[in-house]
């Protein structure tokens, strides 16, 4: 087993210090970043949203055939981004991969916050968000309940479950670390961590219970995560719109989600590494492994895309044929080819180990992949709705300024949440990193090329 740390001379204490410092010591740069992200959120996300609430959803660019637009593609994007964090973490936990341990906390946080942003997007998307509670099952005097046959309601249930599950999962994994931070803080922080850590002491019994609870959660969350994105795909696939009504959509969405989520992790890893001083914990190894994963995912994704085109073409159905042809050569074609370049062609660079282990190229690629994946979601909605059964009702949808602003703002919202997160949660799991290290000795080990078990 390889250790995740770059240097092998780190002791338990060093990690402890590094992580606690990342929480307690806050420089002006952090505040500047937080203020910037916060104000961008307000200005680009909440302000346009309130404008839209006041005047109606017409503030966005939706129209008659294109009743869905970027709000829904952003929703899928964020849900997709959420897919790698907790899911990957669970899989790696169950397979006992040690390289997971330095990165999984922030990956899970990414899951959680992208889910929050996605859930917010549901509110942004619907025409009358002030009645959104009608989609929740609760007893009311109208004796009306939501329609449990609707794929949208599967979504509601799945996302609610996924948010709950992810929150609990990240929290549970953090309890020992909260306890560790608790001992080093005072004042309100101490109060907070005392409560968050629930009085954790690290006894053998507690570790044992935590281990099992954590494992069960991981087992439960893997099928959940797969179901979540399948269900999101069913919002589309259960319609009879040409090019949406496809059986391959569930795996397509799941793979796409993991793909974009993994790319998102690479981006977040890079940023954390640079800004939080985690160079020792987030290493080339992580990028290398994530790169391999990305490469595999990109190949699967490309394959599914090819299959989608092939089946559409082979079906001989005029509607399918037209819709797919429109995707390739119609109004939105530049976006399609951009997507193919970013998501299918560019990732082939990762066949090179040198590329995988270089930080900046990986960052650029990961961002490109996510741009491509956003485009993919946009195209799924925009092209299919533009070319449905009745040619007389065809039309084109173009996003409005409000939509673009809210999209930009959603990234700021995500960043804001993440910035708050890094000051509350230990963004590297201390105890699991310690676990992978050699047992502390009085004299630090001499740097060695091999790694002790």
């Amino acid at each position, binding site marked *: 087993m390889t250790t995740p740390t770059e240097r092998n001379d780190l002791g338990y204490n060093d990690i402890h210090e590094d992580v606690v410092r990342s929480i307690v010591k806050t420089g002006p740069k952090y505040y500047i970043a937080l203020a910037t992200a916060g104000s961008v959120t307000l200005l680009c996300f909440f302000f346009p949203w309130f404008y839209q609430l006041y005047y109606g959803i017409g503030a966005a660019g939706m129209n008659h*055939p294109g009743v869905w637009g970027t709000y829904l593609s952003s929703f899928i994007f964020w849900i997709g981004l959420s897919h790698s964090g907790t899911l990957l973490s669970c899989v790696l936990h169950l397979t006992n991969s040690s390289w997971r341990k330095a990165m999984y906390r922030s990956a899970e946080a990414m899951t959680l916050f992208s889910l929050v942003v996605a859930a917010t997007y549901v509110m942004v998307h619907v025409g009358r968000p002030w009645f959104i509670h009608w989609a929740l099952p609760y007893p009311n005097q109208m004796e009306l309940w939501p329609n449990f046959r609707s794929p949208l309601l599967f979504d509601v249930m799945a996302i609610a479950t996924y948010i709950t599950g992810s929150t609990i999962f990240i929290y549970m994994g953090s309890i020992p670390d909260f306890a560790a931070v608790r001992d080093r803080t005072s004042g309100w922080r101490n109060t907070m961590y005392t409560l968050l850590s629930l009085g954790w002491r690290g006894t053998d019994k507690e570790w044992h219970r935590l281990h099992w609870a954590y494992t069960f959660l991981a087992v439960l969350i893997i099928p959940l995560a797969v179901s979540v994105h399948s269900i999101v795909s069913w919002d589309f696939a259960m319609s009879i719109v040409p090019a949406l009504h496809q059986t391959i959509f569930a795996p397509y969405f799941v793979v796409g989600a993991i793909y974009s989520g993994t790319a998102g992790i690479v981006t977040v890893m890079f940023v954390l590494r640079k800004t939080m001083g985690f160079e020792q914990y987030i290493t080339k190894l992580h990028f290398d492994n994530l790169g391999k994963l990305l490469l595999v995912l990109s190949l699967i994704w490309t394959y599914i895309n090819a299959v989608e085109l092939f089946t559409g073409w082979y079906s001989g159905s*005029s509607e399918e044929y037209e819709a797919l042809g429109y995707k390739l050569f119609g109004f939105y074609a530049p976006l399609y080819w951009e997507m193919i370049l970013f998501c299918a062609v560019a990732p082939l660079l990762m066949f090179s180990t040198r590329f995988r282990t270089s930080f900046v190229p990986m960052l650029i690629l990961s961002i490109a992949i996510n741009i491509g994946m956003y485009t993919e979601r946009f195209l799924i909605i925009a092209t299919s709705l533009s070319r449905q*059964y*009745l*040619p*007389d*009702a065809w039309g084109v949808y173009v996003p409005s300024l409000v939509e673009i602003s809210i999209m930009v703002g959603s990234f700021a919202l995500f960043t804001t949440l993440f910035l708050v997160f890094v000051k509350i949660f230990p963004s590297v799991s201390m105890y699991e990193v310690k676990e992978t290290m050699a047992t502390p000795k009085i004299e630090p080990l001499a740097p060695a090329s091999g790694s002790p078990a």
Partner: protein
Amino acid sequence: MPNIDRREFLKLVGAGGVSVGAGFMLRESTKHPREYLIPHVVAPEDISSGLSTWYNSVCSMCPAGCGISVRTREGRAKKIEGNLSHPVSQGRLCALGQAGLQALYNPDRLTAPMRRNGEGTFEEITWEQGLKQVGDRLDLLRAAGRGNRVALLTTGVRGHLAQLFESFMRQLGSPRLLHYDYDHPHTLYAANQQFFGEDRLPYYDLQNTRLLLSFGADYLSNWISPVHHSLGFGESRQGPADVRGRFVQIEPRMSISGAAADEWIPARPGTEGILALGLAHHIIAEGNYSGADRDAWMAALADYTADAVAEQTGVPATTITRLADSFVDTAPSLAIGGGSAGNHSNGVDTLVAVNALNYLVGNIGQEGGLVFNPEPAGPALQQHQASYSTMLELAEAAHHGEIDVLIINGTNPVFTLPPTAEFESALAQIPLVVSLSSFLDETTALADVILPSHTYLESWGDDFPEPGVGFSVGAVSQPVVSPLYNTRGTGDIILDLARRMGSSSVMPWQSMEEFLKYGWQRIYQRGDSQTLAQGFDAFWTSVLKAGAWGETKSGNTAFSLNPDVIAGIGVAPPEFSGSEDDYPFILHPYLSPNFHDGRGANLPWMQELPDPMTSIMYGSWVEMNPLTAQQMELSEGDLVDIQSPHGQLRVPVFIYPAIMPNVIAIPIGQGHGEYGRYAKDRGVNPIQILSPQLEPVTGSLASSATRVNVSATGKRVKLVKTGGTSRDLGRNIIQTTGGSGVEVSSVSSNSIPITEVTS
């Protein structure tokens, strides 16, 4: 209880207080806003809250004269539908008729009398002021024996309002009573006069016809009585179980009727009459006409052989002979002509030729052919229809200072006359221009005094549809709502002015309602003994209730042709102003299905109703053949300059698959400079560039005889339209049957095309 120190306690008390207040306000804000129940002071008989009341009346949105039923609730008109018992509309109504509600509730209505003040703007005045100003002037002129310096220009009203106008002008001693409408079919009247010797339109029995040849008449959209024609069309198509009527449309640009037809035949603009004579020639040459005057016909039509006609019209000779043969073989059949075919320099000749066609196959006076109408039951009137040249005369008289007062009612000549008529400057020469319009249209905007009239839904009136439906029909238009604004009925205004001129002895009626009742006495007298026994009041009530009155006396069925007519038959090639080299395209302006001659443009519903053929809303466009557009490298939305010898317009292009390559078409109706917020500054008005070409017989404007050239501007706009792709791409969405080789089960099918036409 834990210890709480004083400060803490005060803090809590404060917070508690604030939140109690917040809770209080929260509840306050959730309370239902206060609504009121406003009772009547005295309960009216015909208004029951929560229940609809229906009133029958007459539509005035176009000259067809459909009967309407208006649904009202709580004294407000809610919906206009066709009156089931009215023989013209039979319960059906077109889009424009239904949008009449928006004329009533139009936010841009004139709400009170107005006068132009020194600064050139309008200021509100009282009715007394306005009527006094006009009445005094009229009285002065009448007293001075200069009543002929007064002109009354009205839209084509019928019935007792027309009679009222007539007697009013008679009191003034002025012959200048002009009924002017852009769309009035002068040439059709003239052609019928010439052929049948009757200055009245016959009834075209579409319902029973088995083959209709329409030469340019857009009978389903704007021609004479579209709703009634539509009823006939539907009935002929799929009414009887065993036979299906066949419709053929001949015109340079496919109209709604062309789209509905089974066959659309493009003929060069202005050559429709030649084509009709070509058919006639073939019929006679094939020996299918055996009348005594066959030789005279043969002589008159000698030049119109199929090949010669094919050359002139651009319609293949085979098509001509095929049409002619089926026109003979199918009985009853009917040929109608009008619209653009009548708006050429040879308009009257063309329509005479169409009548000749009917004559030759014996369609005249036949069911399913052309049926003569009896004398309308309404008051006997002289013809006051003003053609283009009449309007020119009026303008000239005004320029010469011969007109002192011009009263304008409901017509908008500034919009519907080409600028070459110089009507606008003529208005400026007239010292007192009085408008009785409900809206500030282009003409009213130039008036000196505006005495706004009720809309038709607020006022009394009556109508005797012209042409009738083969028998006499009349209907009373009654107010269905109380007036919204400080306006008065046109008839009431005229009566008031008459009183002020001291004409009370001749025109003693206090109101239009009274005058109507007086006039309808005469119609009541026509009734049978049973009706007479019940008295006039019962008759009046029943007419109001039914919304229609009619009697089944038909017109004469016998017809003999004046032999002189035959010799005069012949259609000259159309004349166009401008040379073909400079102006390679022929402009085909057509009445918009939505706006008619522009009168519907102030109705938001009509503005947002897609044009049936193109789905365009809210604007103007020029239709071009795809090949022409391809040659000129134009595509949909490209702005082009349309230049005629008399003006220029800038319009976006719409590629129209069914228009002749050298013809471009622009709908009339948009391009208003006034006429309220919905109409103003939207699109273009093709009348603005028409050449003042006349039809020599009637003096009407040959509006389809303008040549233009088209030049690209390099600019583009996005056409506002609802339709996406107008090809079904083999998806078989609109399915068809029939033709040959299609198996149709025979039981109870009303769908098998029996009328086989060999093609």
